[in-house]
């Protein structure tokens, strides 16, 4: 469709003729207040909050249902005002109407701090109250679904939640019943709001009418920090904001990415933040007993050397174990892929060593593990498929593949079932983030593990596998480091470090490097191994893995990019690299 140049508050913007004024104004950084309109749900026109003044029209117009083309007349394009005295007056009037029956329980309202009523009142309301008729009382704290609570008094009846259940999930649990000011959101008895996407209604509720049962009253939202991240619940890799405070993750909220998850994410995905807080492996453990990190690194290095028959390396003293940074200075050039000088396979024999990977790991961890196996473990076998049972797949977002980085594992050529090699037994088994012994996974592997002299586990959480390992080493989850995943579309997506690593947890590539350093003092001298930063690792990865050739991770942007299209030469479609910017509450 043709484009139109329109004028909003005296500033010009050229937009698609079919774009509405709320979106057009957004292009100029002008926020027109609104409740019922949502880009993912379309125009409804009921809240009347987005009234604007169009020159030449006596009546106010709703910005959501006024499109750029509507402003064209034969005499030109009519200018639009969003902050004129008239508009302010209209907005004040609509707010006053909304507050007529709205309870003033803001201090104990969980929406406080992210409530559109509060924000708009702050910006445009502020009148001397003349609301002295008794307020209508409606239902409060209703379990409208297993994960959502309704406060009908606070509801502004914008109908976003109803339209979400109709248009997005097609489940239609919600409806507005009664009419006039007795109108209320409700579900049908016996059919609660229980769909797999129900918490999106909480996100899109502009006020405190729908709140998440789980998050409710756990944290005032202004104390939360927000970091761009990726949901690890399935192969979709929904773009999210990871919201956290004092080192704890509190919730996931979907982040707009039209190519991946549009505006939504599933309820199950939202619950996957729990392992970031609970049952963490914070300190290394040797057969269930906590040990200091140096000791653990030394032990690991020693086992690596013994298993690969390497004799030129670390001794019991383990003096190098903690000295990584000083060593790094001399290795300034090693990060650019200068690994050719690395220890030759002739010195180490990896035939009795196996590394099991998992698609739960970031691309960086997988790449580092692959290198570690090749160079420090003497060309040991390295493979993984992920042992979790498939999850639920639907036609909206959820994928059956329960891992965030299955494609990334495959693109490194490592997606193989390790069971045949595992079953043979050997001297050293390294399990990276997989939990085969976990519930509903591969209990049979317990017997295989018995065939290995030593088992080292690298992971985020304590679990059945960590308990079975001889040595368990903590690594950082995606909340505590930068990283990337490749989703099922082969789209490379970036997550950002949100929280300081818990306990002794190390970024997995760094952990590999430290083991390597501890295992082979020669690494400092001229056989470099490892990377000192995320960017350095990616330089190496892009140069050495054909599937990622040419990837400039720094230019990935907030929405990621598809590897295959990139290979075809299309432009990078990232939207900047502003991980630290403020998180908008919604699109």
């Amino acid at each position, binding site marked *: 469709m043709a484009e139109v140049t329109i004028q909003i508050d005296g500033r010009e913007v050229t937009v698609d003729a079919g774009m509405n004024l709320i979106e057009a104004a957004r292009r100029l950084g002008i926020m027109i207040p609104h409740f019922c309109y949502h880009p993912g749900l379309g*125009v*409804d*026109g*009921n*809240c*009347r*909050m987005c*009234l604007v003044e169009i020159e030449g029209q006596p*009546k*106010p117009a*709703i910005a959501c*249902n006024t499109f750029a083309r509507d402003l064209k007349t034969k005499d030109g394009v009519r200018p639009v005002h969003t902050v004129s005295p008239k508009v302010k007056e*209209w907005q004040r*009037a*609509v707010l*006053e*109407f*909304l507050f*007529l*029956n709205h309870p003033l329980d803001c201090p104990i309202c969980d929406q406080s701090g992210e409530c559109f009523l509060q924000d708009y009142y702050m910006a445009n309301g502020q009148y001397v109250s*003349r609301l002295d*008729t*008794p307020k*209508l009382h409606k239902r409060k704290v209703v379990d409208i679904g297993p994960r959502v609570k309704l406060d009908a008094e606070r509801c*502004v*009846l914008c109908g976003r939640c109803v339209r979400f259940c109709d248009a997005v999930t097609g489940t239609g649990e919600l409806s*507005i019943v*009664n*009419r*006039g*000011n*007795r*109108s209320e959101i409700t579900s049908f008895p016996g059919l609660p709001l229980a769909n797999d996407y129900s918490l999106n209604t909480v996100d899109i509720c502009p006020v405190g009418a729908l709140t998440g049962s789980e998050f409710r009253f756990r944290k005032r939202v202004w104390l939360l920090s927000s970091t761009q991240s990726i949901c690890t619940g399935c192969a979709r890799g929904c773009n999210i904001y990871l919201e956290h405070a004092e080192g704890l993750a509190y919730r996931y909220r979907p982040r707009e990415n039209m190519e991946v998850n549009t505006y939504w994410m599933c309820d199950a995905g939202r619950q996957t933040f729990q392992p970031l807080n609970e049952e963490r492996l914070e300190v290394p453990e040797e057969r269930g007993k906590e040990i200091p990190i140096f000791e653990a690194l030394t032990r690991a290095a020693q086992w690596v050397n013994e298993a690969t028959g390497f004799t030129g390396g670390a001794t019991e003293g383990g003096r190098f174990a903690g000295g990584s940074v000083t060593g790094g200075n001399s290795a300034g050039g090693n990060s650019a892929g200068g690994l050719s000088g690395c220890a030759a396979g002739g010195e180490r024999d990896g035939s009795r060593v196996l590394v099991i990977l998992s698609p739960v790991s970031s691309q960086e961890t997988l790449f580092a593990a692959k290198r570690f196996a090749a160079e420090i473990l003497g060309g040991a076998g390295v493979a993984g498929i992920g042992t979790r049972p498939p999850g639920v797949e639907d036609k909206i977002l959820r994928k059956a593949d329960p891992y965030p980085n299955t494609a990334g594992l495959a693109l490194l050529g490592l997606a193989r079932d390790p069971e045949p090699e595992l079953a043979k037994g050997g001297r050293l088994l390294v399990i990276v983030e997989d939990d085969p012994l976990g519930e509903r996974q591969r209990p049979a592997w317990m017997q295989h593990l018995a065939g290995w002299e030593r088992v080292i586990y690298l992971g985020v959480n304590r679990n059945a596998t960590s308990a079975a390992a001889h040595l368990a080493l903590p690594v950082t989850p995606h909340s505590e480091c930068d990283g990337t995943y490749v989703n099922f579309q082969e789209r490379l997506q970036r997550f950002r470090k949100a929280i300081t690593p818990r306990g002794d947890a190390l970024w997995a590539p760094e952990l590999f490097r430290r083991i390597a350093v501890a295992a082979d003092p020669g690494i400092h001298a001229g056989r470099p191994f490892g990377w000192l930063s995320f960017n350095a690792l990616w330089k190496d990865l892009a140069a050495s893995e054909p599937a990622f050739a040419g990837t400039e991770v720094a230019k990935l942007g907030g929405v990621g990019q598809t590897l295959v299209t990139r290979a075809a030469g299309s432009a990078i479609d990232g939207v900047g690299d502003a991980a630290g910017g403020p998180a908008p509450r919604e699109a």
Partner: protein
Amino acid sequence: MEVKLLTRNFDRPESWTLDAYEKAGGYRAWKTAFALEPEALIQLVKDSGLRGRGGAGFPTGLKWSFVPKESSSPKYLCVNADESEPGTFKDRYLLEKDPHAVIEGILICCWAVGIHHAYIYVRGEFGLPLFRLRDAVREAYAKGYLGHDVDGHGFDLEVTVHRGGGAYICGEETGLIESLEGKKGQPRIKPPFPAVKGAFGGPTVVNNVETITTLPWIVEHGAAEYRKFGTEKSPGTKLFSVSGHVVRPGVYEIPLGLPCKELVYDLCGGISGGRTMKANIPGGSSVPVLTGAEAEAVNLDYESLAAAGTMLGSGGMIVLDDETCMVWTLAVLEKFYAHESCGQCTPCREGTGWLRDLVYRLEAGGGKSCDLETILSITRNMMGTTICVLADAAAMPAASFVQKFRGEFEAHVGAGHCPMRRRPAHFLTAAH
């Protein structure tokens, strides 16, 4: 002076039967209409100057001409028989007494616009009008006036009588369409207008019963004859339903432009009990009220009433005598609008309830003098800010009552009770 265009058959015995209608010359007009090209028929209706009789007064021929000739989705006619504007009962008379004239009007409209399915949306509360209409439709089908190949003209027309569920807002044309589609009757945002995208996604004409029923007469006698009645800008006749404090309440067909005085004092026999007219709501409860003196000076046509600051509306005239309390009257009306607001748009959903509560409080004697300014300010904030005009319909009476009868409102505040009524109305004491 009454005239009998629409009411010409009302006095015939069993006027609602096909037999009686045919004997009176019924179903001749549509034969004339079929002989015309659709464009010529639309032009005829345009020439007649017929304006929508439901309340808005939009020119009928013009409305038809907005419907695209070619359409990929089926076109529909919705006949608005959801008569529920307080004080209006003319359509009930048409449906009860001359349902075949409605059907003949439908035939004419559908031929002109190229429609093959008409729905008659009858308000849910109607009993007899609905039964008569259903019987008439059945008769018309049996006689071949409806259905496949109407009367051998190669034109198909289905007519379905649809009974609503009881909601004032379904009288609004897009509310009616939503309701017809099986949903809550909540008006739609416009654009798109029904002529482009209406019922079931197809281009749709929504016409009031009275508008539709006027068509056979216009076709039979011509636009020029029709224009002999009424005024230059408001041609033709209009049914007025008069109720309240008049001696003979009822439906009267008058040429537009008739002095209001003549309708009230001559046709309706004046004010009951020999009292005087304090106020007059000329066009259904939603239009601004006139004082008795204003009403006596006004003529009943679109322009004169607009000049007097009110509207012709649906022609549901409510006459109030000098013993009526205007605050109580407004309380009755605002109770209605608060009950009937569909609840979609914020200003209407909240504003109607707020107005009601304030007027209740005034009538009950607990009002404050600042309440009058608050009411006027609420009405300003409601008007023109919503999807449909129900907010305006609630606001206009409130504003005009307070402006024109301010003294009475102030007397309530001053006295701390209603000076004119001994017992409080039931709705003031009951929980609502």
